[in-house]
């Protein structure tokens, strides 16, 4: 079966983030980037399904030139080829449109992506992509079982509940972190990745997508909550102060 995995490149976890001068986005100049964590689980699931059922895994990503590095890393983990749509758009609907256009001629049997991104956190790209391709979808998936012509999934609900859903293939699934164990790229994998194909689709700004229906007007640090009493200084002094407060002020110990 042919599996496409839509991945996103996001700032390295725990990077110190600063706003740009206009206060509309983060300053990306000094940042390092990596694969969005839930997308890494989607990729792993795709690789495991290929091992079980045979076929091909294609990774696809929308983003600026730097994204090719993340695609290359996915190839090193075992994906067969990559598609890089060069665009700086951050609009969900626009990005889903770009993915749909590139994936339509590929007609994959299954499309996986992470349930949400660590940057925007909209958690919609996969679902919108399914709508644009006219495919059924299911979200926050913890288990994928391929059956003839269909897929049975375990979907996470709130408060520790789950549900099994069946739908015909092709389908789009958004994958929850933690459903499998991530593999590392092997030396051989890294070597092989150098010869694997990454198809680059360049879009020259103009008329690449419909105008977004929502724009980020301003990005800013949330107002600080003044209620927290923060203890600083050396750990022992801070610890002593905290215990004293918990005993005599909060009276909870």
């Amino acid at each position, binding site marked *: 079966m042919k599996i496409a995995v839509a991945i996103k490149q996001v700032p390295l976890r725990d990077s110190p983030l600063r706003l740009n001068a206009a206060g509309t986005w983060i300053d990306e100049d000094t940042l390092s980037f990596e694969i969005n964590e839930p997308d890494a689980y989607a990729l792993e699931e795709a690789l495991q399904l290929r091992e079980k059922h045979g076929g091909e895994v294609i990774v696809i990503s929308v983003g600026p030139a730097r994204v090719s590095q993340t695609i290359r890393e996915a190839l090193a983990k075992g994906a067969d080829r990559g598609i890089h749509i060069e665009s700086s758009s951050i609009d969900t609907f626009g990005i889903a449109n770009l993915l749909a256009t590139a994936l339509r001629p590929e007609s994959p049997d299954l499309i996986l992506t992470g349930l949400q991104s660590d940057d925007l956190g909209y958690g919609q790209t996969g679902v919108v992509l399914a709508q644009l391709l006219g495919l059924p979808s299911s979200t926050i998936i913890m288990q994928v079982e391929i059956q003839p012509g269909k897929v049975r999934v375990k979907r996470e609900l*709130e408060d520790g509940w789950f549900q099994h859903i069946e739908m015909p293939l092709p389908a789009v699934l958004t994958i929850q972190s933690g459903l499998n164990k991530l593999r590392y790229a092997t030396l051989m994998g890294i070597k092989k990745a150098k010869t694997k194909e990454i198809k680059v689709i360049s879009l020259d700004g103009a008329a690449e997508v419909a105008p977004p229906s929502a724009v980020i007007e301003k990005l800013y640090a949330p107002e600080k909550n003044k209620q927290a009493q923060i203890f600083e200084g050396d750990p022992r002094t801070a610890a002593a102060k905290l215990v004293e407060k918990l005993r005599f002020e909060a009276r909870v110990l």
Partner: protein
Amino acid sequence: MSVLAIVEQRMASEVLAAAQQFGSDVKAYSIDLPYTADAYTSAVEELIRKVNPTLVVFGHTYQTRDYAPRLAARFGRTLIGDVIAARFEKKDPPVFVRQMFQGKFNADVRLVGDGPHFVSIQAGAWRADGSPQVEKFSPASVTSRQVAEPPFREAARAVDLTAADIIVSVGRGIKEKENIPVVEALAQALGAELAASRPICDAGWLPMDRQVGSSGQTVSPKVYIAVGISGAIQHLVGMKGAKTIVAINKDPDAPIFEVAHYGIVGDLFEVVPALVEELKKTK
């Protein structure tokens, strides 16, 4: 501004409260169908074409996340998901505020063009009040490619965190499974239950039934000590009802400090052992 509130059992009165803040002309409906993504997408699409609202409001539940983006896409829109506030200016619709970068920043999001627009509100962001009329909507016809089985729970939870008076909870800051005893020692010194944020349970460092957050347990102990937990919203919804919240984190800008009553900014590998020592000393 005309507002259509789509109400499910979860977050019902919060959604109604938000809808009433957003506009004076509010119609509220629940969908009279068993849930599947396809069924709800077409049902609410039919309802929107009938009611013709400027704004459609949902609770940001797992169900909404499953179908509302698809629905919005049918109208060429992006769902503005998980909003925490709305700011009103001279013209409708308001500017919506949502968190980005895992809560490190807020974003003011402005809607462009005519309605219908789509927003879902974060759990706990609006105070539930009153219970206006909610009508039931039954669509003319329904087809669904998804076939859903009844919801189920995994084997009964071995740990009931909701009964604990004191909880010590650990997050990514612990770095490795081998470091778990550092926080175990603190839990022991306090007679506390040990809990964790999702990534720790995903990695198998602690069992799933010790997970606090939207997909784990919701707790409200007397004391909740968050160690190396940055405070993503999925975690906060599971613990912000605690009476006293203590945060220990090396990042002074971590969102966990926003809900904490007491905090220590520092290296948990120095702070936690110091705390254990202090607790033993003064017992």
